């Protein structure tokens, strides 16, 4: 018999715990030749702001050992165009659509949340308080427990959709920020966003990225992510979604065993566009192989003896 793979993130029910990570899967359509979106637990789309954004000047990416640095700068079509041009296509699939949102001010976070609420086909919001690559908003909100809570509250009061707050790893105490978001009304937390990094072209003595610094992602960051997810799971009682360098099912299972209710697959999509489906299959195989009838038996099953 096939094992059960449904997981619940608050009121949000996913057919399996595998989602795409924001900024690595476009608006879904880019991957449609490679991935049957019906097979995914959820699609988290590229971060959306109230108004369109051009993003950062190039060069924007650089390969690093076991990963990459990026400083895209939250290029996106804006909330209006997302709803009219991108969302209708996504509605045809039997998956959950989670919209990642961000603003430059507290007010803007509330406004973009409100603009996406009551729109058919949007099932949850993921609040980006952790982008390291823009001057305003993003990271600065995510580094301070008080401000993280305020952003959460601003979104919470603007929407009745499930609110997932995406946390930055570039903080000294992730548990404190997690608790602040929880008490401000977050339904779930997702982590980690990218780690701040930098790389230099030594021949020319210039940074590889025009933005100088960027966000590090890929398998190189996974142990950091697993540790932070473990810390966060132990600090809060709301569901935690694990993100960071997942390349295959075994990597996703690390997060689930550490206590994450679900996972997001990011940079791996760039390397293997079919990877999300392969991870869905791989988790099922694991459950069968270990005699688990339900993925929820695995979640938080870490033995620390």
């Amino acid at each position, binding site marked *: 018999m096939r094992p059960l793979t449904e997981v619940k993130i608050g009121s949000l029910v996913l057919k399996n715990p595998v989602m795409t990570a924001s900024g690595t899967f476009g608006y879904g359509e880019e991957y449609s030749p490679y991935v049957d979106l019906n097979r995914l637990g959820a699609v988290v789309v590229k971060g959306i702001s109230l108004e369109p954004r*051009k993003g950062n000047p190039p060069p924007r*990416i650089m390969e690093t050992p076991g990963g990459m640095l990026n400083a895209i700068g939250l290029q996106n079509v804006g909330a209006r165009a997302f709803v009219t041009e991108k969302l209708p296509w996504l509605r045809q699939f039997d998956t959950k659509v989670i919209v990642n949102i961000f603003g430059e001010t507290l007010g803007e976070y509330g406004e973009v949340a409100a603009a996406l609420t009551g729109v058919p086909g949007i099932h949850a919001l993921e609040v980006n308080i952790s982008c390291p690559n823009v001057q305003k908003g993003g990271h600065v909100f995510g580094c301070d427990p008080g401000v993280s809570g305020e952003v959460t509250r601003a979104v919470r009061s603007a929407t009745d959709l499930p609110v997932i707050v995406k946390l930055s790893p570039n903080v000294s105490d992730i548990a404190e920020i997690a608790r602040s978001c929880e008490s401000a009304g977050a339904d779930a937390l997702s982590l980690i966003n990218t780690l701040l990094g930098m790389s230099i072209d030594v021949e020319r003595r210039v940074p590889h990225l025009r933005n100088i610094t960027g966000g590090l992602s890929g398998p190189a960051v996974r142990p950091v992510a697993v540790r932070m997810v473990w810390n966060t799971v132990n600090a809060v009682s709301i569901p935690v979604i694990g993100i960071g360098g997942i390349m295959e099912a075994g990597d996703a299972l690390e997060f689930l065993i550490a206590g994450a209710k679900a996972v997001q697959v990011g940079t791996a999509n760039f*390397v293997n566009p079919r990877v999300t489906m392969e991870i869905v299959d791989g988790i099922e195989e694991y459950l069968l192989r270990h005699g688990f009838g339900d993925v929820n038996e695995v979640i938080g099953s870490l033995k620390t003896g």
Partner: protein
Amino acid sequence: MVTREDLTAEILSNAEVAPCHYLLALAVSPVYRDARPGQFVMLRPGGLGIPFLGRPLGIYSLSGHARGARIEILYRAAGRGTKVISTRCEGDRLEVLGPLGNRFTCFPGMDTAVLVAGGIGIAPLVFLAERLTTGPAKDRVRVVAYIGARDAATLLGVDRVRAFGAEVRISTDDGSAGHRGPVTELFRNEMGSFDTARTGVFACGPYPMLRRMGEIVADRPMPCQVLMEERMACGMGACLGCTIEVRGPGGPEYRQVCTDGPVFDLRDILWR
């Protein structure tokens, strides 16, 4: 839906054809049968270290094969990724994603194609030369290829382009073959002989060379397409990493080389 099999290529050969330059032949799935000049593939030797991401490489030739199609990639082992690819042998497998990107296009009434290649920029232009000379008679045009390289040893693609019936003009930086000096200057010296209303220019090479092409054709109404190259993660418009700046109606705009390109109108490019 693209299958796992479509994302795998088998190496038929991978030979050093000039110092640091390799010709790679791959057996790929039937999805490549419709590949067009200008398009590229993302090639990845596998593994999670360096190289981690695929490398965007232009298609040099396309032909039939029992597996579906055979493509050739002519590349320079310049960085860590291409160096690893150059160590792979016949029978090895590579991860491949493609064909990707837009293509070179001809305009109605075009009867002459001028190709201007700098260094390894010759690779996608050889595929174009083949299509412009070996297609249905009504689609064939006169092809004049300006091929520039550092020296005679790294001058590539010349025999192939000649075999397609193209007229070839050669330049090298050191004068060891053909004209001595930049290929752009060789083209500039002769450009007056082309009918601007019927000639399309197609260029590929290092950015300083393409930029110089822009200056050379600035006051002549010849359409000029260039193939751009940027670092890429996904190759399909998701990562938004391979951005270049182009002239837009309301000012500078960003474009993605992978999906808006890699072929652009030279006059639209804003060089950084």
